[in-house]
């Protein structure tokens, strides 16, 4: 049963739903944050358009800084600005930031407790034709381990907009990841968003699917199709990877005794790993993980790649059936 309190779009499985890249929501949210707080500033490393930080640049040219192809420097400058009271957003592709500048994020930003917001665009296999070099599939693993760093993977453009505004208000460093492709917009302005609070989108009693990012929608579709086979599936939008909403995960695990995690990320070290860490220490149940199974990606159309690597509706359904087998 879809949770009405989540105010998802009316025709959740209809043909007519809009599809928008999550990064657009980032661009819009950042402009709103900039209007609200004049201390919000933005920096970019030669990817102003594709990260959508261009929206902010247009609105606030004096508060925008082009650093060139220099992600390490960008992280450091942002740290210096943050300590001086600014709220800097830095943006590049996830493979370069936090990929290239992890040490700077660790020390200049996190160890300094600098109020910097790191925006990683083009994450996940759905980056597509650019190939493995540009598909960030390890970014959550290398960020969620950093003390004090909040890590967020929003599920659609509206949630990304809300997350961006919330992140601007949050005191402390944050990493957010976005996708490149048009992804189904299935939440609404009324859908709640709170950092660190997972959203139970659909209740269910046989299996809990814990998902993040645009794959949350695929999890909902899979859950609906599984109902026809008589399998009751709960779907949790687990948008905050760190600090994770432990209670939400545990409540569902206790209810269903079987968990499937779903993310566009390596299964080693990602959101699913974080879920497994919580379960193994508190309430061990069988877990199956949908995500990159320890390999690099490759070129292809996003849809083809998601299917090939199992991050599809079918992939999720198979994982649900597998975990049900193990539950017996």
């Amino acid at each position, binding site marked *: 049963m879809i949770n009405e309190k989540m105010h998802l779009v009316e025709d959740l499985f209809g043909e007519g739903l809009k599809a928008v890249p999550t990064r657009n929501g980032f661009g819009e949210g950042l402009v709103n944050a900039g209007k609200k707080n004049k201390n919000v500033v933005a920096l970019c490393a030669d990817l102003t358009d594709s990260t959508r930080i261009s929206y902010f640049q247009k609105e606030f040219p004096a508060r925008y*800084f082009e650093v060139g192809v220099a992600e390490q420097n960008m992280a*450091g400058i942002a740290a*210096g600005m943050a300590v001086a009271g*600014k709220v800097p957003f830095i943006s590049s592709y996830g493979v370069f930031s936090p990929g290239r500048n992890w040490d700077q994020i660790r020390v*200049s930003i996190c160890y*300094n*407790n600098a109020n910097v917001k790191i925006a990683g665009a083009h994450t996940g296999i759905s980056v597509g034709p650019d190939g493995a070099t540009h598909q960030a599939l390890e970014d959550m693993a290398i960020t969620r381990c950093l003390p004090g760093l909040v890590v967020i993977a929003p599920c659609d453009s509206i949630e990304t907009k809300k997350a961006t505004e919330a992140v601007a208000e949050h005191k402390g460093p944050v990493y957010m990841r976005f996708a490149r492709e048009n992804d189904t917009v299935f939440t609404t302005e009324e859908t709640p968003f709170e950092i660190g609070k997972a959203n139970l989108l659909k209740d269910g009693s046989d299996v809990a699917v814990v998902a993040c990012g645009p794959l949350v929608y695929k999890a909902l579709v899979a859950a609906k199709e599984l109902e026809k086979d008589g399998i009751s599936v709960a779907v949790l939008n687990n948008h905050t990877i760190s600090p994770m909403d432990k209670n939400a995960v545990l409540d569902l695990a206790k209810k269903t005794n079987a968990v499937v995690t779903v993310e566009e990320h390596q299964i080693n070290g990602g959101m699913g790993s974080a879920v497994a860490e919580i379960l193994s220490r508190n309430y061990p149940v069988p877990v199956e993980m949908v995500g990159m199974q320890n390999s690099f990606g490759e070129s292809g159309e996003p849809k083809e790649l998601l299917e090939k690597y199992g991050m599809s509706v079918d992939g999720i359904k198979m994982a649900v059936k597998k975990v049900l087998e193990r539950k017996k």
Partner: protein
Amino acid sequence: MSSIHDDKIKKIEEKANEIRQDLIKSLLEAKSGHSAGPLGFIDVLSTLYFHVLKYDPKNPNWEDRDKLFVSHGHIAPAIYAVMAHAGYFPVEELMTLRKLGSRLQGHPHRESLPGLESSSGPLGQGLSQAIGAALAAKLDGKRNRIYACLSDGEHDEGQTWEAALFAAKYKLNNLTAILDRNNIQIDGYTEDVMPLDSLALKYESFGWHVLEVDGHNIGDIADACEFAKSVYEKPVMIIAHTIPGKGVDFMEFKFEWHGKPPNKEEAKASLDQLRTLGGKIKSEHE
């Protein structure tokens, strides 16, 4: 014309000598840490803290203070010793260096010790942070100055040059950088490990105004810092030529002293030399 009186120079020289002794004592007590770099940079740091910088140790977060970012965090023992003498904390606390629960972490931790502008240790990160502070100061219309101290070894790091490009692009005339040109790093002399000369020409071609000083001449350091304020269109790089291990003859110019503390005998010999200014005066502590 000099920007600093002779008697003040003398005072700072004496202070620096005292600080070198406290540094040796704290390294001996800590049983680990760096000797050569810290000894070599104490004259610059002392000139900054006792003449150049505007700050209030009783109110370390004073909004209009000048800000100093020391990028080569391994010279922490020198930073701490100078800060103690500048009034940020009691000199006795230097004896907690590197110990469990101490505010004087092996490499500086901003959150632990009020007065530090940044955490540092991983080389190459300081100039970027100083640039961030300089940009923020400009956005806020502030008239304070931002200082960055860099080592020569960290000029092997790409980030340092990324930052150099950026500072020139944004004409950060509220930024003064001081390069600790001591010609050593861990694996040897910088020119053997990775030749850096001419750093002056490199920075000039990157769009900086470059000054060169004897990093042990308090008057010259003070003058260069004063002159830097009058350069309008560019950030200023002061290349301070320093002697690693300065003040202790068996450490001077020796990269082997980059990362080890003196043992008991070496500490005693060091303190004797410092007290007598290398035999120039008689020590009263014999």
